[in-house]
């Protein structure tokens, strides 16, 4: 009898949700044939069978959330006896009771055994590290304390997970939403003739983003510093660069790209802002900028990451940014596209929002919120003139940064955008 397990597709993945089974119990399955569709915290993926055989038992229903590496089905010969434990956790294929979702808890994790020393386990517990993520260097690849400590230092910032990004299939949502109509006859006191509402489940990407936001707000003391800047020179520069960029790429050079570019270089000057929490008592200051961009994708908030943004020309940055946005909107992100961010920019300018307080994308320590470009009367050399103004909102984690740190960083960004010439000086620094 062959076990089918919930795949572990990313370092940080702990659970996977079964979206749909392609095969019924008793169906013949070929090796390589899709068996079911699984939603992880990053992507949806088809799980293929590794073997030929009959799908003997499905242990979980569609919609069930299962710990990674847990057995979810058995494939074998038609008359092979099923392992005993499958009987206990088995969820009848045609039952549709929500209680069946509790079934996974009855099952002992099967394949999560890791060879690790007690000391390694103790350290991992303390640092909140999953041993399945750690490579053991001891005899028999046993994980030793040193391995966990090395992992703790080197783990990518994403390992505490970038937010967001759970792609949810609209089908799932629509299936689980249910409308309730209250008939006034049931309640004669009701004033309105017909009251109705919809129950929307809090789950999937919505829950993931929501929970992360709640955690960030409750954990990180947020302070937002705001600065309104005159970006006429940047707009002028953009106007001159635009034809060049368009000639060489299909991408359109947006003001947002200019902001990304300026921010990436400002972060290089302020490594304390380009930082992530490694553990409760350690911060990593990154020497490269991996810039996350909050994207309102149809399925929810995603934060694709432009890796090594500090090394990219404005051309490359523009192209990468537009590709990532496209991928996010099409739902074709690869897990890597969402991992490893060291700083995030959220732009609500297109919605006419002038200023807002963004929530930090933990484990990062700051986030830049960009408002819309608005022409405003300002005073320049004693005269009232009209200038294109942009509001920058920097929320920072006051555990890691102080107001002055954040203000200095924002000042650098502001300088680069008010006088982009400085950016070229910075490039050579």
């Amino acid at each position, binding site marked *: 009898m062959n076990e089918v397990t919930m795949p572990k597709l990313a370092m940080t993945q702990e659970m996977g949700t079964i979206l749909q089974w392609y095969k019924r119990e008793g169906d013949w399955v070929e090796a390589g044939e899709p068996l079911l569709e699984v939603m992880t915290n990053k992507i949806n993926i088809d799980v293929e069978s590794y073997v030929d055989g009959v799908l003997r038992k499905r242990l979980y229903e569609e919609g069930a959330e299962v710990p990674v590496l847990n057995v979810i089905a058995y494939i074998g010969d038609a008359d092979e006896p099923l392992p005993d434990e499958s009987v206990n956790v088995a969820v009848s294929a045609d039952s549709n009771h929500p209680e069946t979702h509790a079934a996974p808890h009855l099952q002992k994790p099967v394949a999560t055994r890791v060879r690790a020393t007690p000391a390694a386990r103790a350290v991992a517990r303390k640092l909140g590290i999953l041993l399945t993520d750690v490579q053991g260097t001891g*005899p028999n*690849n046993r994980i030793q304390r040193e391995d966990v400590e090395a992992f703790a230092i080197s783990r990518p910032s994403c390992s505490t997970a970038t937010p967001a990004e759970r792609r949810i299939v609209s089908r799932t949502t629509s299936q689980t939403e249910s409308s309730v109509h209250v008939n006034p006859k049931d309640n004669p006191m009701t004033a309105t003739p017909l009251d109705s509402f919809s129950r929307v489940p809090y789950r999937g990407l919505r829950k993931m983003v929501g929970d992360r936001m709640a955690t960030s707000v409750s954990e990180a003391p947020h302070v937002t510093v705001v600065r309104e800047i005159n970006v006429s020179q940047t707009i002028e520069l953009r106007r001159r660069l635009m034809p060049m960029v368009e000639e060489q790429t299909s991408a359109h050079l947006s003001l947002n790209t200019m902001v990304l570019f300026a921010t990436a270089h400002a972060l290089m000057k302020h490594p304390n802002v380009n930082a992530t929490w490694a553990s409760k008592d350690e911060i990593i200051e990154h020497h490269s900028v991996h810039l996350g961009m909050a994207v309102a994708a149809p399925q929810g908030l995603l934060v694709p990451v432009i890796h090594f943004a500090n090394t990219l020309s404005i051309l490359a940055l523009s192209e990468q940014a537009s590709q990532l946005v496209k991928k996010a909107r099409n739902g074709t992100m690869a897990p890597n596209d969402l991992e490893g961010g060291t700083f995030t920019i959220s732009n609500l300018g297109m919605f006419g929002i002038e200023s807002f307080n963004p929530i930090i994308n933990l484990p990062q320590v700051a986030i830049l919120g960009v408002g819309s470009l608005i022409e405003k009367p300002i005073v320049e050399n004693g005269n009232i003139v009209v200038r294109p103004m942009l509001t920058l909102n920097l929320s920072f984690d006051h555990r890691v940064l102080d107001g002055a740190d954040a203000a200095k960083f924002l000042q650098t960004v502001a300088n680069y955008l008010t006088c982009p010439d400085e950016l070229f000086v910075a490039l050579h620094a």
Partner: protein
Amino acid sequence: MREITYQEAIREAMSQVMREDERVFILGEDIGVYGGAFGVTRGMIEEFGPERVRNTPISEAAIAGAAIGAALTGMRPIMELQFSDFVTIAMDQLVNQAAKIRYMYGGKASVPMVVRAPGGSGTGAAAQHSQSLEAWLAHVPGLKVVQPANAYDAKGLLKAAIDDNNPVIFYEHKLLYSTKADVPEELYSIPLGQADIKRAGSDVTLVSTGIMVQKSLTAADLLAKDGIQVEIIDPRTLVPLDIKTIVSSVKRTGRCAVVYEAVKRGGYGAEIASLVAESEAFDFLDAPIIRLGGKEVPIPQSPELERHAVPQVEDIVEAIRNMMQKA
């Protein structure tokens, strides 16, 4: 301070106590003019006379029985076994009488006696004269078991053993008799149940007693050249055992090896390893606890085979290297 041998330290402890305390006497086979199988009691009959240095018939059961009887009536006998292997003949007296009487009489009687037992291999004395059966005795509640590793410890521990109101099995290692150490001339006592850190180190805790302490120290010097710092804990007494010192060392090093000459299977080192695994040091273990013990064979007479039957310095070095090794 002067240097004397392990053998001299034992003789000195007995003699000094006997000068102070008339209740103390020694008995055993050929311990008089001949001075005992290893010459430990040589010269004592001249000083203390045949009343207090008593030659006995060749019957360890009788020697033990006589010692227990004397102890019960207020004496503090020290009996000598020519070879610790012969404890098997004295076993009924020791296990069923000496160990039990204090408990069975509700503390109204006690058996303050010492069994001196030369043990271990390395002299070509073969299967019946080279064993290390200390685990047999350590298993029995009511008996204390001591295994001194050097002349200093031997004198102080023997004094404590004689002063103890319970039967104490005092294991002397034949190969240690001629080893020397600084030993104070005056009498002193080393409490039973107090381990000694024979060498401080940070990488591995090596627990050993008796002759294995010497071998461990030599191995530790070699390992230090590879940058491996071995901490050597000598519990000195198996019962009572100072597990606290061992556990606190393992908590620091994260690794524990136990070396003993006795047959590995069922040896006392297994008890130490188990206690460590059960202790709060568990969460600090960064490698499996290992035991090095004797092979599961009677000790061969051939010197070369005899060498291979028990852990040697190179075995300790290799085992610790493996323990520290990366995959």
